[in-house]
């Protein structure tokens, strides 16, 4: 990062170092989000360029990888927005209100602990299937939920990531929860030990 600020010939060497140190980890994250090798490679390269463009904003008081990863995440969200992949919650989801209420009702009971491998595998399969559907229908919302679970993001951190006002962020988080309830309804029912709604 020092080379970035100072400029000159050291930049090229530093860019190579950036690629060697961080490509693998960022590519795996990007691939998981975009599910396309080419798109993931492009996103990582865009991220490295943005790292260079924004290096003056890195103060060195936080770890480098999370700072770079936040840039990658913003890039992914921009991509989702540009592609217009979000499916509005109400379109083709006539059962939404019912599903949301059903998940709320189900979670009144204690989550059942899977008592055998078969049930654990069944739950995991169901979750993967529902989650994949969620990612296809609402990639931004699914991505933000996964980042909250992985890194414990706060409301303020989510607002920074989304580049939205606190009010708009609150609305987005609320939408995340609603969408999760709709797309994961089958898994919630299985996880809480009831029949699917």
């Amino acid at each position, binding site marked *: 990062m020092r080379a970035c600020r100072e400029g000159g010939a050291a*930049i*090229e060497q530093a860019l190579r170092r950036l690629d060697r140190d961080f490509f693998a980890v960022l590519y795996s994250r990007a691939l998981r989000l975009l599910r396309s090798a080419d798109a993931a490679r492009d996103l990582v390269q865009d991220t490295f360029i943005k790292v260079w463009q924004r290096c003056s904003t890195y103060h060195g008081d936080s770890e480098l990888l999370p700072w770079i990863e936040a840039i990658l995440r913003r890039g992914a969200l921009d991509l989702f927005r540009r592609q217009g992949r979000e499916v509005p919650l109400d379109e083709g989801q006539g059962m939404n209100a019912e599903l949301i209420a059903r998940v709320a009702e189900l979670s009144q009971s204690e989550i059942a602990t899977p008592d055998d491998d078969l049930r654990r595998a069944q739950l995991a399969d169901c979750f993967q299937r529902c989650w994949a559907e969620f990612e296809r229908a609402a990639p931004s919302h699914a991505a933000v939920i996964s980042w909250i679970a992985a890194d414990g993001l706060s409301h303020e951190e989510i607002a920074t990531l989304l580049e939205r006002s606190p009010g708009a962020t609150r609305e987005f988080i609320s939408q995340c929860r609603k969408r999760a309830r709709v797309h994961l309804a089958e898994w919630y029912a299985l996880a809480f030990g009831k029949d699917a709604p």
Partner: protein
Amino acid sequence: MNESDIEWLDALAGREAPESATRREAQALRAALRSPAPAAITAEPPNLAREAQLIARAVEEKLIAPGPPLRRSRWLLPIAAGVLLTFSAGILLQYQQQSTQPEVVRGDDAVVRIAADDPAALKHRILRELRAAGVEATGYEALGAYGIDAELPLPLSDAVKRVLESHHIPEPADGVLRVEIRGRE
């Protein structure tokens, strides 16, 4: 976003939240998302072609630029001008004598920099010779600079040594060869 959504966010993020249906809903989702733990990512060997693409992109974006100007003082400029005038004739003569031979300099950043009359032709020639010597070399071009990246199998074969020697390129100790060729200024 109501109180319940705030509880949901806190529980999903792994923060303390009061026992409730909302917490259970979020905790179930958190557990499912975090299981199994993601596989550890291992560092991968350098991919010179990919790095070359990144450098080319950085040049396109005008990120690679000369370093900051040196701090000048009032007395430094006249002295530098005097020194320049004194030696300019000699330097010019020397330059004219050597202008047909590429000048090779190995920088501190392990990049071998060559100034040549026809950088594109020299790049193609070195690439061709390296490949003929069994080296997978990658060439690139960005804003007037021509580059070659290659990972030389160690120990260096005689054929590779001959190619390097013929162009006055020092043998890289780590086997990573990076050459940048520019036209003479």
